[in-house]
């Protein structure tokens, strides 16, 4: 039976900073698109929503 493992156990140490940086970039990109989408939906509501 294997030793109980968690994601932290299996992630090589040198990968963590790179992954963290990639995560931050991805987070910023995805959230930017979402904010843009929400702003467009907000404009739609503001312009026509009554």
């Amino acid at each position, binding site marked *: 039976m294997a030793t109980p493992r968690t994601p932290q156990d*299996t992630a090589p140490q040198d990968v963590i900073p790179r992954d963290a940086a990639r995560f931050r970039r*991805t987070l910023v990109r995805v959230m930017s698109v979402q904010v843009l989408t929400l702003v467009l939906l907000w404009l739609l509501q503001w312009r026509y929503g009554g």
Partner: protein
Amino acid sequence: MAVRGLRDSPPLHPIAWLVVVFYVGYVLVDGVRRSRGTNEIEGYFLANRSLPWWAVGLSVMATQLSAVTMIGTTGQGATDGLRFVQFYFGLPLAMVLLGVTLVPFLHRERVFTAYEYLERRFDAKTRSLTAFLFLLSRGMSCGTIIAAPAVVFSAVFGWSLGWSVTLMGVPTVLYTMLGGVQAVTWADVKQMAFIVLSIGGLVGVLLWNIPVHTDDALAIAGAAGRLRVFDFSFTLRETYTFWSGLVGGTFLMLSYFGTDQSQVQRYLSARSVDAARSSLLMSAYWKIPLQALILLVGVLVFVFYLFTRPPMLFNPRNEASAREADAGAYAALERRYATALDARRAAARAAAAARGGGDPAAAAAALAAFGARETEASAVRTEALALAARAQREKSVRDVNYIVPRFVRDHVPPVLAGLFIAGVLAAAMSSIAAELNSLATASVIDFYRRWVRPVASDGHYLGVSKIATVVWGLFACIVATYAADLGSLIEVVNRFGSFFYGSILGVFLLAMIRRAGAAGAFVGLLAGMGAVASVATYAPEVSFLWHNVVGAVVVVAVGMLVSLVAPARTAT
């Protein structure tokens, strides 16, 4: 009462049939062609972890987008406007979180199922219980996702229920059984194209046929409340608010995409961790805009019916039962509805004209007058629905799912009508295929190989997997055929499913906490399900979106408490 095909439904145009037959034939032949390279269990269940990110991403989206989205969400747009889009506000965040936690981890562990990992991390009983809960909920839901469009098609297009179920079920079972995940994924790619094409086609037809400028059409829809997207009120009772979508939605999407084998299996088949992550991010980018577009189709159908007389009730069955129960009352309602519609149409035209007149105050007054006429027409329709409900001895009946199919039947050119039906079939088949594939995987990997036959050749497991796919397919078709008669039982099954969705997420969250042990995970899972069942029973007004939050939080809290008290399992 069973829903059977209505004899008076006009037959589908031969050209529309041709498009549908072409679609089904193409998907079937292409799916079977993709069965090459699936001679081993890794190929059959995970495509040898070789699929490109974009194919997996489209498969993830196609799996989530079911036929109910095509007919129900569009209908919701017509009756309720855009606010349903708030349901998806938590999705992008959930996808990003999964991309840095579970996705790389499950991919690197080289597991077949998400539950397999739970045995490595905790113990066999936690794995078996979560896999069993998955089989139970997905097994039943697979039947209901066939049943929902089948019931609508049988009522609107006059097809028999058995034929509708067969049309969706048989080709899907065939290509899933023969080609495994490879066939499912590549079929999903084409099905996603059919879905987007059919939605685009509907938008085009609607814009072409609405007799006022698009800007005026949107203003009129807005005056009827159809373009209200955001609701910032904080209440646990409402499902579609900004906060329930953001918080409850995040937990729901984490559960669905992170722990439901029907989604996990999609990205486990990606060729690398980065490909798996990217496939999920495709949904993060596109889900909300796509969902808004689908709702907008419904909004435009609403505007279309302002200028073209709609039926009072869109479900022919409701109309027939109400008329049969009290012909006089129904006729009176029809007369009132006709008068209300005439007034509403005149008000809509007046509003469009006033907006072009250059007087903002007059335009606002005309739009307000239109809003009042719309409320009157809507009230008559509500009375008619209540009459149909009394006739069927139900508490209430709805016909949201019938609005767009009825519009397609009555007002869309045959080629596009066929494309829409193909789009609905595509949405249904892509979800069914992913579920059958994942049900077979969990049955074979988490139960058969784990408990019944731990050592056997790949050929043996492959054979059992194909049998499992067919058995689950038959089960889904049988459930679908009888689902119309089961009525509220389906709702019970769906509610039952929501009892443990968040709880299973809680177990995976515990798995990421170093100090959590096997006993904590198992007890926490039971406690989480119990907590959600209690909330559902004693506080039924709380929206189901919050059940996922309750389940996950209770599992983590109780699981950690038990883990701190009971010593963690040490590996041998």
